């Protein structure tokens, strides 16, 4: 009867407990604190990070144990991680996943706590005291460097650039000036590279229809970039971007592909025949665009992009208003055709802007936990770090994989957590109710705060890109 009442009215057990307690005490029943009784049936889970990994894990924990309570902590005042701040603005359909995440946020057993930086605002010890299990889903918030001379002064990090065009508060002041620039070189062969190439080459009318940050749109309006060179360490068979992203570039009406057909020596029907379908189709598309680029004249295209293979960056220098990027030419290691070695021969590429896009990297947030500096992840077995502490998504697996793979990983780890909980002696944990008393020096945000910001964004048709403005909206000052 009681349970029926609770589920029918979507009541939190805690709230119900409090109400019942008030009622019983006011009627003279003071012997038993009904609040404790009711609270005992809840598992309290803490999720650090509100990207896809955190949300899919929360969703699955609640599916497997609907009575549990999940508190999702996020460094920024707003949720969704890389879906809001990574996925390209011209990929709105990918962002549809946020509808599922919003359903999770609306679950009465879920609390969103934003503007809360785990590690800085709270120690692991305090979290352990307050939760049955802690799930680290904080992504990978750094990026890999090239470690070459001139990098610090002359190379733009892809991560920062992506944050800049997506309105990430930390990156909004990145000094990006695309006026008078013609040639951009992006180092790296992944999807983030192709995202950047597409943003640089897209007609402005297309970008105007997206939620790209207003200042990035301004800068891109003034952009004179006409050539984007994508530079990979290995060959066409080793690229790590995926076919959907490649096809978008190939199909671009405003920019044509240019390739050196020489790079495709030895890649032919015979070889392709035995590849698994995905690799075969990707290589075919690369080959087709290379062959087409060899025959099409520059025609009506005003812009172009170029895939340069077998090159490693060695140095960037400024000469007047141009950058000189020195690349070493690589060759395949005869012992292992997937690997390359430098030949010692170099070439200098003159350009106006250089991006490094060779991968994101995880960061240590809790000193108490082991951390592998090399891979940037916390050593874990199937998502488990130690009893009661788990990791998912890019924080646990390293920064590779689309939302789909992150999702699957979250489901798997959530399952493990629930299985492990079976053998954990049940104790009373107070979750955010305790934590909130420990973080008193800053205004934390909740789901309704985010709703205000989202409403504002929808009304004004632009992303809010500073923390200051977010709080003005929350406080009703905007």
């Amino acid at each position: 009867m009681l349970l029926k009442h609770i589920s029918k009215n979507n009541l939190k057990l805690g709230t119900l407990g409090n109400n019942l307690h008030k009622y019983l005490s006011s009627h003279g029943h003071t012997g038993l604190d009904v609040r404790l009784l009711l609270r005992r049936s809840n598992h309290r889970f803490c999720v650090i990070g509100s990207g896809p990994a955190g949300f899919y894990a929360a969703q699955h924990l609640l599916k497997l144990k609907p009575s549990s309570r999940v508190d999702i902590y996020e460094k920024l005042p707003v949720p969704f991680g890389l879906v809001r701040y990574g996925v390209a603005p011209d990929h709105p359909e990918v962002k549809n996943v946020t509808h599922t995440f919003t359903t999770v946020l609306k679950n009465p057993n879920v609390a969103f706590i934003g503007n809360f930086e785990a590690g800085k605002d709270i120690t692991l010890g305090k979290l352990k005291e307050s939760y049955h299990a802690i799930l680290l889903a904080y992504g990978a918030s750094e990026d890999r460097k090239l470690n070459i001379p001139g990098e610090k002064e002359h190379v733009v990090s892809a991560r920062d650039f992506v944050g800049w065009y997506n309105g990430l508060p930390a990156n909004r002041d990145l000094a990006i000036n695309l006026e008078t620039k013609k040639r951009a070189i992006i180092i790296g062969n992944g999807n983030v590279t192709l995202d950047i190439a597409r943003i640089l080459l897209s007609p402005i009318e297309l970008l105007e229809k997206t939620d790209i940050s207003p200042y990035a749109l301004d800068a891109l309006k003034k952009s004179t970039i006409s050539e984007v060179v994508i530079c990979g360490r290995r060959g066409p068979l080793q690229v790590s971007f995926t076919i959907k992203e490649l096809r978008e570039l190939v199909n671009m009406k405003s920019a044509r592909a240019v390739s050196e057909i020489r790079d495709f020596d030895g890649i032919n029907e015979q070889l392709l025949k035995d590849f698994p379908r995905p690799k075969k189709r990707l290589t075919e598309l690369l080959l087709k665009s290379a062959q087409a680029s060899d025959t099409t004249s520059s025609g009506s295209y005003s812009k172009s992009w170029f895939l340069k293979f077998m090159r490693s960056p060695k140095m960037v220098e400024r000469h007047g208003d141009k950058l000189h990027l020195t690349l070493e030419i690589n060759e395949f290691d005869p012992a292992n055709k997937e690997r390359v070695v430098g030949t010692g021969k170099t070439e200098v590429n003159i350009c106006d802007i250089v991006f490094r896009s060779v991968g994101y990297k995880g960061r240590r947030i809790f000193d108490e936990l082991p951390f592998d500096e090399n891979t940037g992840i916390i050593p874990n077995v199937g998502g488990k770090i130690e009893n009661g502490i788990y990791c998912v998504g890019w924080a646990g697996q390293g920064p590779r994989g689309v939302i789909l793979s992150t999702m699957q990983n979250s489901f798997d780890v959530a399952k493990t957590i629930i299985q492990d909980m079976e053998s954990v002696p049940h104790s009373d944990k107070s979750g955010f109710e305790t934590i909130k008393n420990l973080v008193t020096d800053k205004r934390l945000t909740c789901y309704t705060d985010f709703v205000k910001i989202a409403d504002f964004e929808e009304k004004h048709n632009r992303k809010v890109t500073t923390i200051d403005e977010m709080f003005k909206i929350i406080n009703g000052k905007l």
Partner: protein
Amino acid sequence: MRIYGNLLKKLFYTYQNNNLARVSSAISGGYHINRRLLVTTPVAKTDVEMVDITFVRSDGSKIATKGKIGDNLLDVVVNNNVDLDGFGACEGTLACSTCHVIFKQKDFDIIKEKLTDEELDMLDMAFGLCDTSRLGCQVCLTKELAGVEVKVPEGVNDARSS
């Protein structure tokens, strides 16, 4: 009211462009839009023709349900609350491959919708890809498909890195 207006616009946009459309960019991810509203098309009871369809999970368990002729398999999953984790993350916009299903050859052969490059591109990311794989959001139920049984593979084929 505004929300419904937007939804209808989206719906129209999506179908008009043969499911290939970009759903208009919803800033903040259109946080208050409910997916169930997005794909349900109201149809008078009398014109509805239903066919049986069975989803087979990777552990072999089966979910038998019914779908309207003309609905795609994502509609069927959503409208019937079919319990398949994560199915349809991009809501039928060809951007996720979470709706990957595997048909029997004979059923695969009679699917009306042709496989496009874009569908194949997304399928290439799917786990357990077969020659008879399709994306559920791109395949509509027909009379001929009555009683169809599809497998829903679980897991991922990790192709992406940064």
